[in-house]
């Protein structure tokens, strides 16, 4: 199960979203659309996860386990299908709802302004 990104801190004055992120969700994207880390997201990797700050909103996130793996894959522009293939290559079994879960997770990253469609 992939957890949603956990905000570390939120400030009432800074929850305005980047309008470009509100236009559509990942699940609405046609297949093949490429996704990448947002330039506003700065991160630091640790042994068991990655901490990310959105410099536009001042919101912090922490990703671990599979979320951390997906963040690493997003270092290069990639598609949902490629993320799934990459994860499958490193897993012995793949859950039935893997695609849906990955889409939902990447969607939440996009809503948080950490990922953009390019």
């Amino acid at each position, binding site marked *: 199960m992939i957890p949603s990104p956990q905000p570390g801190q939120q*400030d009432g004055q800074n929850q305005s979203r980047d309008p470009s992120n509100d236009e559509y969700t990942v699940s609405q994207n046609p297949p093949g659309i490429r996704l990448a880390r947002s*330039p506003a997201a700065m991160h*630091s990797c640790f042994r068991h996860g990655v901490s990310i*700050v959105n*410099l536009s909103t001042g919101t912090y996130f922490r990703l671990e386990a599979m979320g951390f793996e997906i963040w690493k894959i997003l270092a290069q522009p990639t598609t949902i299908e490629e993320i799934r293939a990459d994860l499958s290559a490193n897993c012995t079994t793949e859950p039935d709802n893997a695609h849906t879960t990955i889409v939902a997770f990447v969607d939440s990253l996009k809503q948080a302004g950490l990922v953009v469609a390019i």
Partner: protein
Amino acid sequence: MTPSDTLREAVARAVLLMRDYAGRGVQADRGDTVTPAAWRVLEDNRLLNLCDPADRTDIDRHREAIWSMNAPALYTIAQLSRRLAADEIPHVFIKSPLLTHALHGDPFFRMSTDVDVLVSAADRTRALRVLDALGFQLSAACRTLFWRTFMGEQHLDPTRPDFLTVDLHTMARHPAGYAPGLTRSILAGRMMTALGDGHVPVPNPSDAFLLGAVYLLKSLLKYEPAGSHLLDLAVMHGRLDPERQQSITALAAARGLKRTTAFARDAVRMLLEPEIGTASRDAAPLRRALSGDEFWIRFLAPSECGPLGRVRCIAASCDRPSDTLKAVGWDTGRWLARHAADAGLF
């Protein structure tokens, strides 16, 4: 005060790691556990990131602590720069995670406990208004004439939890004397660097080197471990072509920083090319003041050194002999002013 053998070993270990990092020394033995004394020296000098994470698992904890300070610092820089630019206030961010990003490829390489922004004295009031609008409040201790005029900086504390303390500088100067035009030239020569989805101003490479030399000397004068400044200077030095090195020498002379800069360059050479030694005549008095083993101990563990070196540093770091007396007088005056301010006299 005589440094113990353990401390000497710790300092030697730190120097080895710095040489290894700069790609100039013998490969440090990564398998060797970092001793508690070496760990303390590296921590004091903000060089813990030179350790291999495989050596110490608690490096991760240290890096998490850096993250918790530098992430708000980066957010503060991004937001403050946007507002200052909107009000057309020329500014430049110094000593920030942006510097470690530019030099070491990682804004989380070293902890930043505050954000240092430089504006001209003429723009100070307007900059304070911008900071006030962002919710910053002038620290009570920094309202005095001493901080505003002598120190040329004031601390502003955030009222929002997502911001970090801002140090508003109106002066960048040599700690023991005058560096005419340094502030103006840093602002005039600023360059833009990417931060998130925007760009923010930072000093150009020449001014960054001059500032690094000033910080190195400042650390020596204030008994602060100077390893991080030395490492930054070493990285900057490695990127300078001979033409740029010449231009920095001329620039330093024009700003009253000739001997300070020469000393910093010699210290870097001693770090990177110890077998060659140093040749700069300009820095010779200061180098003599820190000769032998005391050189590295004064840099990396200054609390173990006596006060005599401080006077020697002041005397030797000024470009003109006539400045020496002025520098000692300035230093004494600053000490008196600080105590007068503490006593509430002004």
